[in-house]
């Protein structure tokens, strides 16, 4: 019983962090039809912002606050330098952002070295949850990620800005002909998507090994979540993250982590193969 509760908590934890990264990917892909292969490295930068800031100032919280801001700026820069030149060349956006991810990864190696960095746990206590001693910081991550995901959904489905963004996603040319500044929507969305990834990286830093490869480690599960849930849908992102995050933690409990990864990838590939539009399928 206690093991089950702990497993459920772990699952929720990983799923919610994954959801933050996935949401960023989905909005960028949905709005701009850009596959951002550097999204994992945005996560990576988020984690290293925390490393750098807590090395210099000793404050984890300042780093957590700065990470999304830094990433929003990075997102704006990337959009301006690279993405806007290749909007209509779908394959080239994959390639160019892939090149970017190499640059960022190696840049981190140059600045911080190839080894793993550790970030001390900022809330090193445990809390009793239904009889399970569970790390308080993980509960904090869950609460924060859930709140942020809800805020994102609220932004997209309940605000006038969200309505405009969804309008651009549905019919870019018509939205522009109604006066909506599509360029500004693109920039804003790219910045918000990047900031979400950076925040996820920052908040996960204390419970992960912070090394230059951690971005790829998160990129692939979040890509799988997008495809499994259904491209172009925020609800799909939630379902996909649930499936991938859930399967990963549950398999890892029974078998080695490497085998669990293999199983999850195979599972995801089968789902993608038979449901090319994702689990939510017809709903675009």
């Amino acid at each position, binding site marked *: 019983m206690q093991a089950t509760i702990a497993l459920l908590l772990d699952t929720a934890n990983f799923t919610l962090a994954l959801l933050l990264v996935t949401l960023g990917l989905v909005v960028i892909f949905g709005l701009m039809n850009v596959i951002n292969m550097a999204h994992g490295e945005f996560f990576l930068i988020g984690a290293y912002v925390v490393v750098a800031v807590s090395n210099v100032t000793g404050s984890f919280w300042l780093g957590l606050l700065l990470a999304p801001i830094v990433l929003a700026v990075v997102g704006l820069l990337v959009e301006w330098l690279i993405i806007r030149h290749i909007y209509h060349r779908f394959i080239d956006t994959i390639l160019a952002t892939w090149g970017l991810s190499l640059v960022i990864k190696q840049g981190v190696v140059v600045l911080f070295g190839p080894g793993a960095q550790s970030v001390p746990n900022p809330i090193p206590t445990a809390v009793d949850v239904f009889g399970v001693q569970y790390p308080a910081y993980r509960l904090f991550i869950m609460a924060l990620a859930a709140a942020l995901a809800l805020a994102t959904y609220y932004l997209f489905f309940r605000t*006038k800005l969200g*309505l*405009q963004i*969804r*309008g651009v996603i*549905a*019919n870019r*040319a*018509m*939205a*522009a*002909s*109604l*006066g*909506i*500044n*599509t*360029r500004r929507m693109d920039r804003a969305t790219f910045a918000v998507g990047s900031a979400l990834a950076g925040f996820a990286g920052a908040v996960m830093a204390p419970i992960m090994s912070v090394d230059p490869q951690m971005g790829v480690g998160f990129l692939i599960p979040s890509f799988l979540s997008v495809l499994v849930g259904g491209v172009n849908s925020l609800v799909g992102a939630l379902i996909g993250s649930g499936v991938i995050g859930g399967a990963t933690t549950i398999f890892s409990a029974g078998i080695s982590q490497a085998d669990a990864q293999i199983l999850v990838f195979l599972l995801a590939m089968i789902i993608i193969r038979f449901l090319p539009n994702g689990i939510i399928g017809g709903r675009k």
Partner: protein
Amino acid sequence: MLAVENLVAGYPSGGSVLKGVTFDIAKGEVVALLGRNGMGKTTLMRALAGQLATQGGSFRLDGRDLGNCPSYVIANEGIGYVPQGREIFKDFTVEENLLMGVLGKPRLPNRLPPDIYDFFPVLGERRRQKAGTMSGGQQQQLAIMRCLVGQPKLLLLDEPSEGIQPSIVDEIGRTLQAVARSTGLTILVVEQNLDFVETLAGRALFMENGVIADRADRIGQLRERPELVHRYLSI
């Protein structure tokens, strides 16, 4: 008010469709653009709306050259576009569709005016309904209102009566006429339905092979000079 001069435009891959279009429209006029299929009418509308890049020439609205502006700038300068096929947001409610008409216009308040549903009452009855579930005629009414709520100076209407039941076509024609008379709205309309053209428009331009080939300076000439209709419209 609208001055189109030697406009050349077309599709990125396929060369130019418009081969030097020139005409003027004065404020408050309602002008019909007539011609057979494939002569460039819709291309002209899309070019004026900024959805196609101009390759040569220019068009000015109240003296400002909008030739190479992105479409959101053109929309904010006062050209409203109701495209062929209506292109409403099918998954949005009627109200959300109408909101889209004002949200992109910084000079307008970002909410709907209270009298918005007076023009087409059916939209008010269905304002919480998904737009995609409505009939073609209702969708056309929605597309027109979505454009009008943004208070354009010039309305570009592409085939508003296409595939719509006659009673609604009449209603649309009468409403547009009333709006044009009361607000001084200028309209350029592409249309195949000559009855509709005669009730709404004051004069007509004929398009052939990417240029303005002829004109009828009074709409009555459509009946007085049957050779015009025969020359440019019959198949």
